[in-house]
């Protein structure tokens, strides 16, 4: 009897505490974006709107944000295109070096970021390439692509091959079959893989730090600034990104909810 009651309150209490643990730091970032703290933003000094009305007030904050957005967009596009092709190729076709290919995809996910960053840096030093925007892009595409392949591959494997066969029976050519049948069904998976890529690229610090030289992304800016004190404007950017991402997710949920409801109504 005691143990059943124990189970009843244990899960909700521990689960709720875990949510608090997860969300308190985010709340701190948000609250301290309103801090009138000047250069160091460690202690609460009073409420102000000025950080939000002038988010580019601190030097380099906006430049690093623009850099991160640009790296994230370019790396995501390349990784999503290459990764989706690999995912389709791996599920639909058989190869001699299949296991090698699988290993090549999984290993980057099972290697710590320091090692990925260090080995790419060793490669760039060896080639004599100058570190900067493009070396960061190369690094980001590398680790994003594995995630894209794994995510999209699950989706391709779940496709019903009979739909394409039906299209072929109706005289649809291979290209038409792909763009009218396969691609639309893969699209949700591809979109979520792309969003994941962008989020990872945007928030990556360790690999970027190894391969960026003097080029500064937003996480690198925050990390370097942490030694002297992070300006409140960085918290504004962080909070704004959080709100935008949350809105995107909510809109996405709303769309799929509506679509499901419409489908149910039709059925």
């Amino acid at each position, binding site marked *: 009897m005691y143990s059943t009651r*124990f189970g009843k309150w244990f899960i909700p209490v521990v689960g709720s505490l875990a*949510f608090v643990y*997860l969300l308190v730091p985010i709340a701190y970032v948000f609250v301290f974006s309103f801090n009138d703290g000047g250069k160091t933003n460690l202690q609460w000094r009073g409420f102000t709107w000025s950080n939000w009305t002038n988010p580019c007030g601190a030097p380099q904050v906006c430049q690093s944000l623009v850099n991160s957005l640009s790296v994230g967009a370019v790396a995501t596009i390349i990784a999503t295109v290459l990764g989706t092709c690999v995912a389709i190729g791996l599920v639909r076709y058989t*190869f001699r070096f299949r296991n090698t290919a699988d290993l090549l995809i999984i290993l980057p996910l099972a290697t710590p970021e320091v090692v990925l960053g*260090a080995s790419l840096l060793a*490669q760039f030093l060896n080639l004599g390439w100058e570190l900067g925007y493009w070396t960061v892009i190369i690094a980001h595409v590398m680790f994003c692509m594995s995630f894209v392949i794994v995510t999209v591959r699950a989706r391709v494997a779940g496709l019903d091959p009979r739909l394409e066969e039906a299209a072929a029976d109706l005289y649809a050519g291979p290209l038409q079959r792909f763009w009218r049948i396969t691609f639309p069904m893969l699209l949700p998976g591809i979109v979520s893989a792309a969003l994941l890529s962008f989020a990872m690229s945007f928030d990556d610090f360790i690999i970027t730090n190894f391969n960026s030289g003097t080029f500064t992304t937003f996480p690198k800016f925050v990390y370097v600034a942490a030694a002297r004190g992070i300006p409140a404007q960085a918290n504004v950017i962080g909070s704004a990104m959080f709100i935008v991402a*949350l809105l995107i997710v909510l809109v996405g949920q709303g769309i799929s909810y509506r679509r499901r409801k419409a489908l149910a109504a039709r059925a």
Partner: protein
Amino acid sequence: MSTTTPLPSGTRPTRRSQDLRSPEEVRAEKKRGRMGAWLILPGMLYLLLFFALPVVVLLSMSLFVKPEGGEIGEFVPAWKWDNYLIVWNAYWPVLVRSFVFALIATVVALLIAFPMAYLVAVRLRNYALLKGILLVLLIAPFFSSFILRTQAWKQILADEGWVAQGLKAVAILPQDGHLTATPFAVVCGLTYNFLPFMMLPIYASLDRLDTRLLEAASDLYAPPATTFFRVTLPQAMPGVFAGTLLTFIPAAGDYVNAALLGNNRNTTMIGQVIDSRFFRVVDYPGAASLSVILMVAILILVLIYIRRFGTKELF
């Protein structure tokens, strides 16, 4: 990458006579196989050039030597295996500490993540709206910069913060004690930062848990603990397995938490050393050999773990 004729999985006709397909079909399938090769070639080439080859370069760089009278950052190819001995002797305690911190963070994250995932996936299964909101909150940390959140922990655990003051008030923490710049703060940060990676796979497993099995167990007079260990946990194992790997591997190599929340004495992690060997000391061979040691150590640990607990659904 070369191509072969695609075959239905599992069957491999040994003799031509067993192949019942018409020549046209065989030719069409061969063409499809070639197209598949073109699909995966660019991506695979990319991974070869910017993942596999760099690892080889890292391996060779770990054996480089500094030439007599060479400039800073000038190293020449060699077979200096001593590099490994030197960095091992200097940094094995740091390596062990990194693994201990990562292990503690993984265990604590598992203990926190499991009830949380269970709450959302099983207990709230019939409350769609609440479940949806909590799911969004579960992935919320991915949307905000992890360095800013780590910095927030510095504020939360600061001497004048409510956590430290509260612990001092009930005398758990001595009056002159600190929470920041301690191993506790670093492990706390590691646990926090990798918690979502633990939670989401467990959630995915528990979401498929058939609750009728739990009812059946209790109908058969299984006490709740037995039900948990014999029914719930085995079903959640793929998620637990994936989650622990996704937490342990990045945590062992992480250095942001140690750098922001630690001190210079007893919290240094291996990632910090690799970083400073590369950029401050400009000892590329030393940094490369440390990276190789870290990579090999993690691979060995992960392989043992997969052998011991591995499920077919992952790897």
